[in-house]
């Protein structure tokens, strides 16, 4: 296998007929694996990578219904950050950000991890207090955070609406300099290539149609390409978690919702941070290619259609133009929807299930992409040791029974409102 580098690029430039090797193989499924991962998205691929890298488990198959990365890792707004205040979320997302920081090196694949900083703009003094709590917790957990006053925001983001006409004033902001963006597709490809090199079989166009469960223990999966036996089976199919878990007889605290995302025409650099807004959920950054990439709330009712409602598209465009009036003349090129698992507390699951040797990773709500490395890392640990890592111990299925919710959004038990 050839290592990617400036040198290898030059070699290929000098000899245009020298073929690049395949980024990952396309093997036929074997009859049996130690671990079968259901879902070739970011989390499933990352899990395979860390199973191999951290635990030496390489007799692993990833079964993907479509092409790898066809789910949410390929349809998000590419933001990475670790500004979470609730219990286990804080450490988990910081671990993720640390993994992001070394990811391109780790994978020998440039994921364009761009730590340009995220600025969340506050619209009231009360919101400044809410942000302060979050920022203080970050700092107390060794995470970078700065509280900015209005003047500092004006310097950093000169293009916001600071006029008297603004519906809500810019009161200040919280800034995480280490937050930023990463090239989403590259994350999937980089993990895939690395896992493949370690010996993991990535099997595309292979849909899981059922689980073989004997005496409360999973022994394999039925697929569109036949039965595959497995010592352990790990679900990582965010967006379709309920559907897949149901095949194993599980009913979950998960609803599938559409979150829309948007990209404009490419422009010369103008927005140099990830900018979020406290008036309504809204976040925008400029991709390396130049497009403004942004999003807002979920549409608010469960659906698998990947088609958004125009009323929500208006809401988000109104946010963009109201916060950043220059965007009025910028043209939207594409909008699309991803199906995400919403949980009643806005936090995910990385855990064992009532079925022995069957593991669950899902319920990512808005934060699936930024969680990818830590999700794979802790899920691999959970699968390898048949018990959670300290970082994901609280991401259990029984937390609602216990009253141990991690309610990051403070919205109560209405998944559709988050």
């Amino acid at each position, binding site marked *: 296998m050839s290592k990617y580098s400036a040198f290898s690029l030059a070699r290929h430039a000098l000899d245009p007929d020298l073929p690049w090797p395949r980024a990952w193989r396309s093997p036929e499924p074997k009859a049996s694996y130690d671990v079968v991962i259901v879902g070739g998205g970011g989390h499933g691929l990352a899990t395979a990578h860390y199973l191999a890298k951290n635990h030496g488990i390489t007799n692993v198959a990833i079964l993907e219904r479509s092409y790898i990365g066809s789910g949410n890792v390929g349809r998000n707004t590419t933001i990475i950050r670790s500004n979470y205040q609730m219990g286990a979320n804080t450490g988990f997302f910081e671990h993720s950000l640390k993994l992001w920081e070394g990811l*391109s090196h780790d994978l020998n694949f440039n994921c364009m991890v761009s730590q340009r900083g995220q600025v969340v703009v506050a619209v009231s003094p009360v919101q400044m207090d809410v942000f302060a709590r979050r920022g203080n917790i970050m700092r107390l957990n060794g995470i970078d955070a700065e509280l900015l006053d209005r003047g500092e925001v004006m310097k950093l983001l000169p293009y916001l609406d600071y006029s008297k006409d603004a519906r809500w004033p810019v009161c200040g902001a919280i800034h995480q300099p280490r937050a930023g963006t990463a090239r989403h597709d590259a994350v999937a490809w980089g993990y895939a290539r690395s896992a493949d090199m370690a010996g993991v079989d990535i099997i595309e166009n292979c849909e899981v149609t059922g689980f073989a469960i004997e005496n409360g223990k999973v022994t394999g999966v039925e697929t569109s390409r036949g039965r595959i036996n497995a010592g352990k089976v790990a679900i990582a199919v965010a967006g379709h978690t309920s559907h897949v878990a149901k095949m194993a007889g599980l009913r979950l605290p998960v609803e599938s919702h559409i979150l829309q995302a948007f990209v404009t025409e490419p422009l010369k650099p103008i927005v140099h941070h990830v900018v979020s807004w406290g008036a309504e959920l809204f976040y925008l950054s400029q991709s390396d290619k130049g497009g403004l990439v942004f999003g807002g709330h979920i549409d608010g009712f469960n659906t698998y259609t990947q088609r958004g409602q125009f009323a929500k598209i208006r809401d988000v465009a109104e946010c963009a133009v109201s916060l950043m009036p220059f965007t*009025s003349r910028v043209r939207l090129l594409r909008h699309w929807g991803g199906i995400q698992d919403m949980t009643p507390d806005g936090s995910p699951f990385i855990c064992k299930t009532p079925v022995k040797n069957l593991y669950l990773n899902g319920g990512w709500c808005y934060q699936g992409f930024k969680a990818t490395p830590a999700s794979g890392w802790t899920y691999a640990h959970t699968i390898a040791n048949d018990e959670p890592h300290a970082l994901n111990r609280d991401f259990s299925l029984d937390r609602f029974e216990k009253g141990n919710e991690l309610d990051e959004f403070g919205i109560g038990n209405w998944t559709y409102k988050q």
Partner: protein
Amino acid sequence: MTFRRLPSGGRIDRNRPVGFTLDGKRYRGFAGDTLASALLANDVTLVGRSFKYHRPRGIMSAGVEEPNALFTLHDGARTEANMPGTIVDLIDGLTARTQNAWPSVELDVMGINQLAAPLFQSGFYYKTFMGPTKGAWMFYEPFIRRAAGLGAATEAADPDRYETRFDFCDVLVIGSGAAGLAAALSAAGGGGRVLLVEQDSALGGGLLSEPEQDGWLQARLGEIRNASNIQALTHTTAIGLYDDNMVVLVERHDHRQPDPAKGQARQVLTMLQAKAIVFATGAIERPLVFANNDRPGVMLASAVRTYLNRFGVAPTGRAVIATNNDTAYAAAFDLAAQGVEVIVADSRTEIPADLQRRNSIEILAGTSVVDVKGKNTLHAVLDGAEQRTITCDVVGMSGGWSPVVHLTSHGGIKPVYNAAIAGFVPGGFAKTHSGAGAVMGTFGLNAAIREGAAAGGGSIAIAAAGGEDRPYAIVPTWMPPRRKGKAFVDFQNDVTAKDIKNAHQEGYHSVEHLKRYTTLGMGTDQGKTSNIIALAEMAELRGLPIEQAGTTTFRPPYTGVSLGAIAGRTIGGHFRPTRRSPLHDWHAANGGVFIEAGLWQRAWYYRWAGDTPESAYVKEMGLVRRGVGISDVSTLGKIDVQGPDAAEFLNRVYVNGFAKLPVGKARYGVMLNDDGIVLDDGTTTRISETQFYMTTTTAQAGEVMSWLEFLLQTQWTDLKVQVASLTDEWAGMAISGPKARAALELAFPGVDVSDAKLPYMGCLDFSFDGVPIRLLRLSFSGELAYEVHLSADYAISLWEHFLKTGASLGLKPYGLEALASLRIEKGHVAGLELDHRNTLDDLGLGKMAGKEKDYVGKALRQRPMYQAPERWSLVGLELLEPEKRLRGGAILFAKDDKIEGHGRGYITSVTWSVELGKTIALALYNGGLKHVGEEIVCAFPLKNELTRAKIVSPHFIDPEGKRLHA
């Protein structure tokens, strides 16, 4: 010179010359021109540089599919980048600039990228820029970003105006070519409301480039004008199809130079609800993929024809038409008719006889253009049956046609491959949809008219056009011949045939992987000319039939749409509605300073007390603690609960009992969600056996109302209760302070407001000056206090009455900041204590809950962790270091704790206590009141502060409630 304006002909208005500039140089065109046609007429052929390699580029098309000829228009705050010159109506004074080139498109320094081109193969950036250190990308990224991005936007706010609107029609016809016109007329014959939309500046579609069909076109346009039930809109693009037949239309008015000061919109976005939709969206011609097919002067054959026939612009010398199908011959014949020497290189070996009979042009069968050399003058290299190089001004290419299936695909129906036309057509239609013309793969004019008429309902006959339909015979040629030189598939993103091969080699097989890995089809043109070629090439490389490779998903919008058009007027001050108290006008006129509280504007503080909130609220608090103040509490949610089961209903939704509340009494109540978390609190008063007056917090008023309606209408339908919002009907004002009763006595002479008549939590309804008044003895501040509720219409009048009659007592208004601070002193929870994460017990209210009765949230509030002793619960804090500050959001630690992690709690609300003369706070703390008296540390690392405080009861003043009962 390679292009010139013909002395006559075309649809331009030669009596209306128009001046414009490109890169500061002045040019002239005519009304009816596009920027692109005017530039060609001025022989400007080099108009841009490509995204990655900075290769010189010219105008390729005459429509929305243009990948190359992108300009930055206008100046200053109206700057607009990346506009395809092919869809810009030429207006007088238009300023345009070329982009992505420095110092000019002719001498672009970044053209040096072409030398390094072999490095820039697809996916190159995934393979490098990773070293030497971990964060190396942060070093490279700024260079990459600057090189990317095409045009530059302005940071200035957009001065123009945009509108959005809703509309409805019976039949929407999208596209006004022959099929669309026939559909619209046919549909109108049925009597319904017909809307015909055309993205171009004129109706007619492809007919605008066919002079021989002008008679038919003009006749139909006349009929459309005369049909009272057809509305026809030009400059209007259907950008997307959404659920249940909502089509979003964007109408552009730039050509009218709208004046925002006069309310004229630059663009109008219509959310159209159509009962039926006819898609007559036509087809887009594809380029051929051969070496250097991107040189200026290489154009789509149909574009050559459009510039000739519609705009009167022709190549001066020779033209080569390269094709694999019949349609390009029309361009060849029309050029020849204008005296242009034309050579057709047709890759098909068999050419229909009727085409060959026309001996005005030279036709080379079995011959392809394989390369184009030259800079200003082109040299087309022909290979096949004939091998020669032809010097020419223009190469018109036609690789066949791709039906515009974007909109039909938005609804979720995937397009299917039709081998006969070598293109994708709609894979089916919803019941109310139909298609007609080229989008269906129907390329014959009369067939399209017949199809259109049928799609429109077929209620009237549509006249046939002249001439006979000829088949669109194509022998597709996807893969380029093996030649040196870049053969482009996606011109804007510089994706070549080689890049597709590389992607295939590396395993990026799926069409979505191909798109994402190479960026194919992700430019401003959204791959309108390139997508089908690329996926056909990939299918061929994989040895799959094209239909098995599939297409990428078509995403709205069909063409780029300004965010301003989507946002319309719901921006700036109109972003979200502003909600104003009935007393708003008084506050505004009398020194009230407002603060945004959700949608509400509330009086924050008053100038009488100070010029900053910090100075004013303390004075206003003092007023209430020592005298009497009046405050606007109209924003509280107010709900009329009536019916024989009203008491039972409230008994269910509140944790505490309401069934036995006596008439004329108020009670504080707390509601939970089903999950046991506190939803809201407020006071509810029993007006009669069957009527209650409920108040909610300002923030939760809407939620609570909906929740009560939900329970009554869907869950407990056996309860006879009606709820109605009174939030807007009633105004509320709090009269608070030791002199509050005196103030009431002065205001309402003759009304007995004595403690005996109106005790704490009592209610008194009476009429004052003929106006019903509801007087409630409630206290948020902890002082002797009342709330006066009355019809909102009279609010200002009564408020002024209070100020007048209470003047001798020093009665003055106090605002939200003082209101919120007074309640902190009293230890009332609000705002951040009710943050949807806290239980009844967390707020110290657990004892309120009824033991015997059932209530919403009862079961789940018993969950083990909700009952855990280490839950964070409400405490008060006193600052121990007067020179320091307590701040909301500070994290709390026990005295000997290591200052790290999540701490033992946090501060929710802070105020200066007028009463105690020190800073106090409310907080949630691990174990809560068990720790009263302990010294703790408040950490605010964002400001590097550590502050000592003492845990105390949250009831800082009058814990026995003597004042309330005074």
